[in-house]
């Protein structure tokens, strides 16, 4: 077993689980689930935190957890009613407990004002219920331990004051049954000094009524020791009530009684009624079974593994390509092996990704706190509903989603929901609802934040955007386009900035955070009914399915997830509008086309004739068609960040290495299809080109 530091780390890891269980249990209680198992689980979580904190002498944590636990114990015992007010206090106490754990973990002092306030809140609950609080300090002092073991040290010559005690020890029924052994108690006494023992056989029955499990032997003991009478009583603390005990100091050291039977200091455990213990070697497998069947591994190790698997997949693609290019391709055996290799590499990659996958539940639980705080700050009543907590997402995604989600949740409570008065006037319930959901959909994760508030105020958004010069004054926009204005940099709904969500962070920051994760964010709103933000994210950040395409002689990759359809249009389906806009007519609809080569600033090196069109969906749910020269392949590509190695390039999300060793850029369809965007080439004269660049021979 590891050092104390390791166990301390274990404690804080365990605290995370316990705090999650606490938060979950309280949420269930709030939802009306007040049966004893729920309340017990909540109690146990706090109790376990207190227990562990005590072991590491984390006084603030112990003090607070103790009072918290006292209130929960009262709820458990039916002495306090778990009404909405109490649950409100309990939830905030859980939040504070989280803060205290975090402070302790970072060895920082806790906020004393907050602690005092929360302690007072809990005390008020107890006082309301007429319940006395026990002082944690008393219970937690080490003095509460029953034995003074310093006194078990053999009396040394520095303690010349020897006293004599006469001890009568008469075990009674229950002493054996409770696992006690009189010989061991006498042996303990022997450690205090020298001992003379007289066995009293007077209670011994005849064989007919003899019962092995009832003690019949009594002892009269004379002990010469420097220890106090109290410490001798403490030896018998555990058998109090299971024996008759008299301890009397002997006035003068006279009159040695004749011992029938002298007990050695080293008492053989012969009186023990149990079989001698078998010294089985510790079975490590059995021990592993006792713990949770999980393995905690440093993230760094997993990342190393993922990186290696990423390289393996590149290597696999290169080997496959090489074989394809040589005469070996004619050998069916080799091709079969290559195919196995590909499948194995893919299995391996999926298995590794599964290690990193974690349920979004802890993230969602953190959000419930954000909702509570936002509700308190704005004076609104909010019910927080979560759906799909078990949905598993890459750990990095979870970490990096915390900030955007926090912002959007605050936004929903602050700007989305109305005050209770306004809601009542509008014929709604006073308590608004914020619903956070997660689900898997065809290789991506969909997160949505939905409120049942007033919906977006589109006239105001439009007016703000015009005033700030973000759009032309006469531009006529569809509803979805107006909603998308919220994500523009520099757009801040100044008229409604509040302390809470208006922290100088606009939704554009949220959008950037999401797109940097390879995701999209969209918004829908129905006036009077509410607003919904939807985040579409890739399952993993390391690998994705991509289409290998070529544009003006460059090989590029576009995420398969964003391509809805690939078509080769008939010339008659393309309609030129104005000077340089081309519309595609498809199934009776016109959608704009975007020339990817021009957009990225490539110069066409060849005229490949009829272009291909990839239809993608933009973030405001309209479609557009990207014009490319060819689609070569659809394959899994390993994502290599461009920003760490080169710099951010508009229109490009990352790079990858293809099977032949060439580097290919991965397109960011959202950025390319951004509505009415100017060609990037104008703004990005440093656009990198990888002609002739080669990764590996």
């Amino acid at each position, binding site marked *: *077993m*590891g*050092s*104390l530091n*390791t*166990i301390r780390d*274990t*404690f804080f*890891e*365990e605290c995370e689980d316990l705090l999650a269980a606490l938060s979950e249990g309280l949420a269930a209680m709030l939802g009306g689930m007040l049966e004893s198992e729920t309340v*017990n*689980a909540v109690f*146990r979580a706090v*109790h*376990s935190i*207190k*227990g*562990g904190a*005590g*072991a590491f*002498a984390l006084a603030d944590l112990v003090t607070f957890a103790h009072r918290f636990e006292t209130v929960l114990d009262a709820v458990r015992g039916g002495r306090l009613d778990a009404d909405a007010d109490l649950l409100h206090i309990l939830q905030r106490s859980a939040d504070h407990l989280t803060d205290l754990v975090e402070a302790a973990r970072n060895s920082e002092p806790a906020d004393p004002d907050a602690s005092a306030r929360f302690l007072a809140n809990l005390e008020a609950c107890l006082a309301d219920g007429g319940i006395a609080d*026990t002082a944690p300090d008393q*219970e*937690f002092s*080490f003095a*509460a*331990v029953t*034995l003074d*073991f310093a006194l*078990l040290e053999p009396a040394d010559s520095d303690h010349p004051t020897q006293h004599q005690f006469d001890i009568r020890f008469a075990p009674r029924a229950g002493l*054996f*049954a*409770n*696992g*006690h*052994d009189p*010989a*061991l108690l006498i*042996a*303990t006494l022997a450690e205090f000094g020298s001992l003379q023992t007289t066995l009293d056989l007077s209670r011994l029955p005849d064989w007919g009524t003899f019962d092995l499990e009832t003690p019949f032997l009594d002892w009269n003991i004379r002990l010469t020791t420097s220890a106090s009478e109290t410490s001798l009583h403490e030896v018998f603390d*555990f058998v*109090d*009530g*299971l024996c008759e005990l008299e301890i009397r100091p002997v006035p003068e050291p006279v009159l040695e009684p004749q011992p029938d039977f002298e007990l050695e200091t*080293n*008492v053989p455990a012969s009186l023990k*009624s*149990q*079989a*001698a*213990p*078998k*010294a*089985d070697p*510790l079975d490590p497998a*059995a*021990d592993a079974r*006792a*713990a*949770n069947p999980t393995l905690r591994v440093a993230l760094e190790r997993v990342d190393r593994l993922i990186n290696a698997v990423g390289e393996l997949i590149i290597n696999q693609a290169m080997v496959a390509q090489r074989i394809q290019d040589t005469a070996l391709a004619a050998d069916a055996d080799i091709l079969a092996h290559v195919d196995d290799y590909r499948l194995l590499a893919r299995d391996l990659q999926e298995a590794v990704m599964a290690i990193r996958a974690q349920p979004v539940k802890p993230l969602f639980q953190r959000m419930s706190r954000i909702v509570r705080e936002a509700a308190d700050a704005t004076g609104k009543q909010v019910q927080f509903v979560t759906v799909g907590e078990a949905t598993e997402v890459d750990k990095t995604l979870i970490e990096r989603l915390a900030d955007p989600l926090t912002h959007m949740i605050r936004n929903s409570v602050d700007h989305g929901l109305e005050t209770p008065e306004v809601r009542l006037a509008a014929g709604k319930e006073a308590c608004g609802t914020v619903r956070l959901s997660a689900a898997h959909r065809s290789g991506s994760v969909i997160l949505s934040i939905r409120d049942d508030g007033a919906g977006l105020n589109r006239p105001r958004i439009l007016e703000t955007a015009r005033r700030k010069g973000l759009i032309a004054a006469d531009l006529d926009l569809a509803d979805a386009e107006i909603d998308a204005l919220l994500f523009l940099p520099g757009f801040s709904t100044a008229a409604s900035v509040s302390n809470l969500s208006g922290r100088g962070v606009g939704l554009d920051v949220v959008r950037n955070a999401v797109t940097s994760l390879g995701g999209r964010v969209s918004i829908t709103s129905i006036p009077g009914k509410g607003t919904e933000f939807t985040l579409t994210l890739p399952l993993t950040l390391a690998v994705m399915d991509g289409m290998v395409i070529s544009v003006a002689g460059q090989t590029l990759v576009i995420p398969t997830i964003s391509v809805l359809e690939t078509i080769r249009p008939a010339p008659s389906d393309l309609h030129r509008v104005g000077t340089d806009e081309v519309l595609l007519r498809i199934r009776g609809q016109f959608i704009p086309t975007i020339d990817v080569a021009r957009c990225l600033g490539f110069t066409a090196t060849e005229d490949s004739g009829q272009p291909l069109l990839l239809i993608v969906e933009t973030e405001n749910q309209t479609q557009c068609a990207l014009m490319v020269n060819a689609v070569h392949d659809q394959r899994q590509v390993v994502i290599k960040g461009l920003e760490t190695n080169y710099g951010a390039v508009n229109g490009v999300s990352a790079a990858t290495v293809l099977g032949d060793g060439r580097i290919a850029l991965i397109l960011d369809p959202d950025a390319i299809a951004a509505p009415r965007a100017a060609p990037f080439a104008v703004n990005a004269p440093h656009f990198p080109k990888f002609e002739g660049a080669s990764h590996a021979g």
Partner: protein
Amino acid sequence: MSIKVLAIDDSRTIRGLMKKVMEDAGFICACAVDGEDGMARFAEEAPDVVITDINMPKLDGYGVIRSIRGGTVNRTVPILVLTTESADHLKARARDAGATGWIVKPFEDEVIVSIVRRITGARV
């Protein structure tokens, strides 16, 4: 002959501490994560002493004590109760249930080792 301890506690932290303290003292320590697991391990390990938490899911510490004392195998094994409460009525309750002794959390290494030695007859 090494003393074998069975520590039953739903807290990973306490199990970790207990295992460290017991192994540092030269004992063998097996752990169980709740009362039911504890009973299963009790049957497998035939420990010399059981140290159990009270508040646990599935089967609490009192349940563990009653199950061991009411069983047929090794039923007079010493059982120590780990408790955060030192109140007398809780001790009385543990004793009435059949506990041999109790240890008040937070425990000090030497104290718990001494108690285990004393109660099992293992001398230094």
